[in-house]
């Protein structure tokens, strides 16, 4: 018949059933959380770093490709320009031979030919050797020469070469003649000519070393020149670099008589300039630094946030545990079972408030005495937390002891006042004590600063006009005036703590008025009446703790 209402689930965010053991575990965890020294980087940081580095790699690749492509294009352009410069120089070779051939044909005199070309070969002349040959039935014979003797004669290959020389508008080239000083030979036989062939040889540099002057427009390149369309080592005319050329190079050819000259060019430096070449490395370095800096920042922020979240969780957990310790203490002190009193119906309620995480020091008690009498107590220790609950415990047991010793209500309060001192204990308490004589329908009430009880008989509720003495803890010489109340049959007395009636913006009298109205409702049992009162007066979760006791005479 006697029940206690437990806290509604939504009124408390913090688990009531937490144990001290779990509190210890939480503290241990707190310790392990805070020194967040060496930990694997967060996944987000790794993603940021990887993303940044990937982007850097793509940018670097793009810059490198662009630079490479520009370099290639510039190289091809310069090699083509070289070829075009060369090709403009070649026709003068042929025209000199054509002129010499015309003189020989017109004069039929090898001596006139010799004096005509005497300046063009040997010494300062353009050719190493210049000669006039006559074609006859037995082959082609050397008539005369200026400069050095033709290598073709020494070589003995003249017969096979001239056998292939035909009258033609193009110069006919021998190929590179092997000797101690390699030469290149070319023959000219005009179309329509039947007798004479003019033949010239140019010495190639002994080492085949080509020197590109630094003032030249092509000083950025190294070259290799080959006779013919293929780059045969035996047909290398000259080169400014070791052949064959490997790595980046460009190739172009120009026609030369009945063959061609092939030019291979390779850059000696970055044709696009140093900035373009360094761009790749600039991108790589800046990209890597930015990626790592971003990842570090992300890591730092994420870690700080993680720590803050853990701290907040721990603080909340510690609060919850602290609260649960106080609440456990309070629930241990509040009697689970109210003693049954013959002729009375008694019901109680305790509701923890939500204002703050600490419990208050509210309590109630019923102490059966002999001869159909009992004492009831309702009290409220100021403040909250474990200390308030401890003060409540001492007052609770002290009042029970004084009641059992037979002190009247005012005596119980006066004795209690000697046990508590606000200056020492930092708490005071308001306490209401009543001595009930069930059969006589009499209640003797004494009040130390507590709110007055409400008496309800014949569905009319009234405030018991009890004058309060000062609260317990203010002075050890408390004097209170008891009040004797005689109640009607089936009367109900309701005593409570301030959490039930106080509400922001209104006087306590208004709250007590609401309690009176709620107490007048028609209910079959006292349990239902208390439930109705709690529902009516606490619209939502109460700020403060509430203790409530109802006493109803069964006859």
């Amino acid at each position, binding site marked *: 018949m006697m029940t206690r209402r437990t806290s509604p689930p939504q009124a408390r965010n913090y688990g009531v059933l937490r144990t001290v053991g779990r509190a210890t575990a939480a503290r241990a965890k707190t310790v392990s959380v805070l020194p967040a020294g060496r930990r694997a980087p967060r996944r987000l940081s790794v993603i940021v770093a990887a993303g940044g580095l990937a982007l850097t790699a793509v940018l670097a690749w793009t810059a490198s490709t662009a630079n490479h492509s520009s370099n290639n294009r510039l190289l091809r352009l310069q090699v083509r320009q070289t070829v075009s410069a060369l090709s403009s120089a070649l026709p003068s070779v042929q025209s000199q031979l054509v002129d010499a051939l015309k003189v020989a044909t017109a004069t039929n005199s090898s001596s006139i030919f010799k004096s005509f070309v005497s300046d063009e070969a040997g010494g300062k002349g353009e050719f190493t050797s210049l000669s006039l040959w006559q074609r006859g039935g037995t082959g082609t014979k050397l008539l005369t020469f200026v400069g050095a003797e033709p290598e073709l004669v020494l070589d003995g290959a003249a017969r096979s070469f001239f056998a292939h020389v035909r009258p033609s508008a193009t110069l006919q080239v021998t190929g590179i003649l092997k000797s101690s000083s390699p030469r290149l030979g070319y023959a000219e036989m005009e179309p329509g000519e039947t007798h004479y062939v003019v033949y010239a040889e140019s010495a190639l540099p002994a080492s085949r070393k080509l020197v590109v002057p630094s003032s030249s427009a092509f000083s950025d390149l190294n070259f290799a020149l080959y006779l013919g369309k293929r780059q045969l080592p035996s047909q290398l005319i000259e080169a400014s670099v070791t052949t064959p050329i490997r790595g980046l190079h460009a190739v172009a050819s120009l026609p030369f008589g009945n063959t061609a000259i092939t030019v291979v060019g390779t850059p000696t430096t970055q044709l696009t300039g140093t900035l373009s070449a360094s761009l790749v490395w600039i991108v790589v370095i800046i990209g890597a630094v930015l990626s790592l800096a971003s990842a570090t920042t992300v890591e730092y922020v994420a870690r700080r946030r993680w720590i803050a979240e853990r701290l907040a969780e721990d603080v909340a957990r510690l609060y919850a545990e602290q609260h649960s310790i106080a609440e456990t203490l309070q629930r241990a002190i509040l009697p689970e079972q109210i003693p049954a009193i013959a002729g009375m119906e008694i019901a109680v309620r305790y509701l923890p408030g*939500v*204002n*703050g*995480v600490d419990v208050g020091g509210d309590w109630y008690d019923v102490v059966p005495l002999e001869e159909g009498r009992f004492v009831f107590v309702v009290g*409220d220790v*100021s*403040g*909250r937390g474990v200390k308030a609950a401890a003060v409540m415990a001492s007052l609770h047991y002290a009042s029970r002891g004084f009641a059992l010793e037979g002190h009247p209500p005012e005596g119980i309060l006066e004795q209690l006042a000697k046990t508590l001192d*606000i*200056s020492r204990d930092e*708490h*005071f308490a*308001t306490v209401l004590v009543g001595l009930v004589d069930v059969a006589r329908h009499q209640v003797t009430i004494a*009040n*130390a*600063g507590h*709110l*007055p009880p409400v008496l309800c008989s014949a569905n009319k509720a009234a405030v018991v006009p009890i*004058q*309060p*003495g*000062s*609260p317990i803890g*203010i002075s050890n010489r408390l004097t209170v005036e008891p009040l004797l109340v005689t109640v009607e049959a089936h009367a109900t007395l309701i005593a409570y703590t*301030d959490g039930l009636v*106080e509400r*922001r*913006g*209104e*006087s*306590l*009298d208004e709250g007590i008025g609401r309690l009176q109205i709620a107490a007048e409702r028609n209910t079959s049992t006292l349990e239902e009446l208390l439930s109705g009162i709690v529902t009516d007066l606490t619209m939502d979760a109460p*700020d*403060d703790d509430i203790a409530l006791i109802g006493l109803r005479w069964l006859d």
Partner: protein
Amino acid sequence: MAGLDASAEPALRVQISREGHVPVVTLSGELDLTSVEEVRSIVAAALDGEPDRIVFDTSALRFMDSSGIALLLWAAERVPNVELRDPSLIVQRLIELTGLGATLRVLK
């Protein structure tokens, strides 16, 4: 935690002034468990000069619970005379119902 709800204006305003050597603590708004410690530290600072009287002006106090009573009793432990000046009805009834009319001098 209800008292920590982010409301635009503070639930309680505290003002300290002096009438001669007597500190006057003017409270307006709501004095409850969540705000009482702040007031206590402010009042503690005002008691440095060891005055023999302190005045609490509670005329603009819309709410006060037992934590407010505890504050006044705490002051009464330290200063011989604690006066309540122009208490609002809410405060007045709380003092009367708590039986502290004799301990705290109420000046209307």
